């Protein structure tokens, strides 16, 4: 394993939402801080910095990851996906995002990025989740505004929509 000097900055390179990203970080710098303050990807939020609230959740090499419990240096060479990568284009929202908007599944929006990342990751593999499964998945996220039900409803609605569009594609 490479040993990094504690008091030096080291180059960190990874793929962020399909594009190369690069910056310098001290070994102790958290991935969440690196994304936000070095790269300007401020859509990922930091709520507790001890892994409970889930706001900072992103996908690293296909795995859901708390970016506040990950060092930037650990992400070197990895493939990262954050909330900035969810929308198909700058002026359009994806299916899951639209479902959130339609169902009033967010208020302040601070915790939302993490929840979206968990759901995006989960729905890609589970096309027909039950309400109980969805609640279980999202129990690793804290939202103080919504009381959760609209989030669950948005998730189930998005799942149904994604499943039907997949079906249409395969039928065609």
């Amino acid at each position, binding site marked *: 394993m490479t040993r990094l000097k504690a008091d030096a900055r080291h180059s960190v390179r990874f793929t962020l939402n399909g594009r190369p990203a690069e910056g310098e970080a001290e070994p102790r710098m958290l991935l969440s801080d690196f994304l936000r303050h070095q790269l300007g990807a*401020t859509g990922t939020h930091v709520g507790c910095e001890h892994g409970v609230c889930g706001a900072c959740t992103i996908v690293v090499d296909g795995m859901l990851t708390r970016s506040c419990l990950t060092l930037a240096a650990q992400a070197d060479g990895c493939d990262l996906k954050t909330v900035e990568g969810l929308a198909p284009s700058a002026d359009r929202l994806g299916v899951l995002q639209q479902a959130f908007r339609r169902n009033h599944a967010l208020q302040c929006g*601070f915790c939302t990025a993490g929840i979206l990342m968990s759901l995006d990751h989960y729905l890609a593999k589970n096309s027909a989740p039950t309400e109980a499964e969805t609640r279980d998945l999202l129990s690793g996220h804290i939202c103080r505004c919504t009381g959760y039900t609209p989030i669950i409803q948005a998730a189930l609605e998005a799942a149904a929509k994604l499943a039907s569009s997949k079906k249409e594609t395969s039928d065609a």
Partner: protein
Amino acid sequence: MVQAAVQSANSVDQGDDRPWVGRSIERVEDAALLSGGGRFIDDLGVAPGTLHATILRSPHAHADILSIDIEAAKRLPGVTAVLTGEAVKAVTTTLVVGVKAPVECWPIAMDRVRYVGEPVAVVVATDRARAEDAAELINVEYRPRGAVVDPLGALVSGAPVLHDGFPGNLASERAFRYGDPEKAFADAPHRFSIDIRYPRNSCTPIETYGVVASHDAGEDAYEVLANFQGPFSIHTVIARALKVPGNRLRLRTPPDSGGSFGVKQGVFPYIVLIAAAARVTGRPVKWIEDRLEHLTASVSATNRATTLSAAVAADGKILALDWDQVEDCGAHLRAPEPATLYRMHGNMTGAYDIRHVKIRNRVVVTNKTPTGLNRGFGGPQVYFALERLVQRIAISLKLDPLDVIKRNLIDAGAFPYRTATGALLDSGNYQEAVARAAAQGRLAELKARRDEARAQGRLYGIGFTAVVEPSVSNMGYITTVLTAAERRKAGPKNGAQATATVGLDPVGSVTVHVASVPQGQGHRTVLSQVVADVFGLQPKDIRVNTEIDTAKDAWSIASGNYASRFAAAVAGTAKLAAERVAGRLARIAASQLNVEAADVVFARGFVASKHNPENRIAFSRVAALSHWSPGSLPDDAGQTIRETVFWTPPELTPPDEDDRINSSLCHGFIFDFCGVEIDRVTLETRIDRYVTMHDCGTILHPGMVNGQIRGGFAQALGAALYEEYAYAEDGSFLTGTLADYLLPTTTEVPEPEIFHMETPSPFTPLGAKGVGEGNCMSTPVCLANAVADALGVADITLPLVPARLAELVRGAEPPAPAGGATAAPAREGDRQLRGEGQASVKGAPEQVWAMLLDPNTLQSVIPGCQRVDKVTDTHFRADVTLGIGPVSGRYRADVELFDLDPPRAVTLRGGATGALGFGNAEGRITLAPDGNGGTKLTYNYDAAIGGKVASIGGRLLDGATRVIIGQFFTALARRAGGGGAEGGGLSLFALLAKVASLFGGRR
């Protein structure tokens, strides 16, 4: 339960002339928030050269500061300044205190700390990490004082006193009398009483506090960006503390704020602190609070001890109430406290017609975090007592609890109704709301479920609550804490100025600005609906800005987002502003269309003649005219470029000579009932059904109203079942992480069944009332009533954690049987670490003894030890770095040896302090030959800790201790040439120098 109708009306029919208000349109805020484009305070860039602050905080609940050594911190590369209380005092003055008393209230400790987490020093450096490095190098010498954490305990003679200006810790005491309560009690056939301890909790937004401040020395003016939420009466407090007039404190808010629920009012002392740091360094300074800081020391709702008595007729009619409230505001009485206690003053009779009321209000200070705004603000504390008492009355008189509620409700024909204590309840039909809720929520069927469950031996209960939800606070209610004579001297305070500005630009597009500072409620969307209706436009045509800049925007002391004032006051004021502009546009259009102004109508993007809709002109054309051709406007029209309306309701009068106060403008009504089941084995409370009926007047956006109800319900459920800011008896804070302060998640929060009734308020422009806080008032006591019904118990204390219910159901846990491996059972809140163990080390006892007393050996075997100094043969000092879970830090340990019996036994006693906490410990080690030439070490220890290490959770301490002890013995054995530890545990010197230092305990 997810099928509840929360969907928005996303299909927009262009030809639809229905008003936009009342529809659940999609929110304009959401696209950015859903794609990572939110602009929260820490998402915004700062000026080049901005410095970053971190705050060193007190590990003690109550202690004198003997000295603060900042030299090492200042020498660290990258550090620009270290501010102690003295440095802050040089550039600021004390914060105003809400009662008349000779006390000061600083945002940083001066010569004494009064709660765990109180700021002691501010370190400013080129980046946050360096600032935190430097903070660890600050050496503060404390002399602990006795601490008091209980509000009634604080009043006991001989209790430690926090402030000399508050004799006996009593910050305020007032007695009130309305009607003839003495006679009512004397004449009544029954008197019932209840004692309540309402706990501390907080709505804990997921975004923490943030401040960026700069100082212009040339003009002696401050510019501050903070996620402050208002009320902007606090602007005056900040400016005064910074010793500048209001026009030299430019306070701005970021476009987005990650939740507040009242809590971000409490950022204001940090605005003063960070602004002071900016002034001292001459550079912009930024500070973002971390979660430990937030939980420990941001702000908390008040905890309160209440005794409530009622004089009651035989049929359950309440004739009089006698309140005795002791409000615990924590270590300092920060503005606007003691407002939590007085916010409900007009509503002390709840939803009931009770004409005789006696109130004794006392405000005390204790060694806990100062309190401030929190969703519900005084309501949860009041209704918990009142609605628990109503249930007790019903049980005692063998009446149905709902019948007792109904017997006491204010009559539908009585509105507007003046309560005994002065509130003017604007509108409602409480009987109808209760009847509808019982029918729509299927109460009869719920009762059958209860009967069936009970027949099967299950613990099932039903609870009821009726609540009046006040909204739009009277800025004068807090003066009820003063006597009438004191108020006359201070001058009148009343009203609640709302502001709204509507502007038309040169292409006729519409901009709205309000000073409502939302934290996710969707104000921009609702305002676009309100103004679109006035102008006959679509919401997407209206651009709304809710940022505030006190240097440029219309604002007043009532600005901000609190007391559920948006829908009732702010949205209504925006309507008035738009209507004023529309009135002028109508005159302009009338002259262009050759019709009377009264014949002009705004619809579908046009200004047209009502009688001849073909006679019309595009809205944008009329709207732009003031810019392009002011000369062609009719003489009486005036400009239509920008209009600001200020609105304050005349009903919000100051307290009268008899202390009657209309503390709020609007009063919604809530009736809740619920069925809960308690697991007989785990004593976990499961909500089977929760029904909540709301009458919040006219509903502007059903999706958002339900969002407020659900969100409030979830927070209230947390307060009822899980959440408590817990303190040990010595004032140590015990819930410093979200693994200790438990917030409900998706698996704990069921969907409440929400029902509505709409009785418009006659006092607000749109007929709307507030709705954001009601469930925080109604739900905790509704659940408590249901649990009391299920368990058949009289006294219920929140939160209803299984351990507490176990005590209620099964009695206190018996002590462990004698002869157990580990020592005394832990009490609740006990942070004592006790343990014992043994280890084998090669080498004879004499050899091991010598190693244990040799500084060089110790330095090499104590994990993380930097150095050990021998002060005397039996007195050592050590510097160690130790990690407990995620928190590692340096500690200075001081250890003495007693009862030496070389080479057989020694007692170690010592203490340690560091940035992460303090501790004291004592341990006894015995050494005996193991028969194989080695030594068997036996040890026991007893330690306690405080400060940050205590706050992050005792969960981690035992495990961490074992690891550290294990490391110690492994190293000792290696040094001695083999062997190792058996089991784990703390031991002697490890305990001593390292761990002991860290975790330490008894004084």
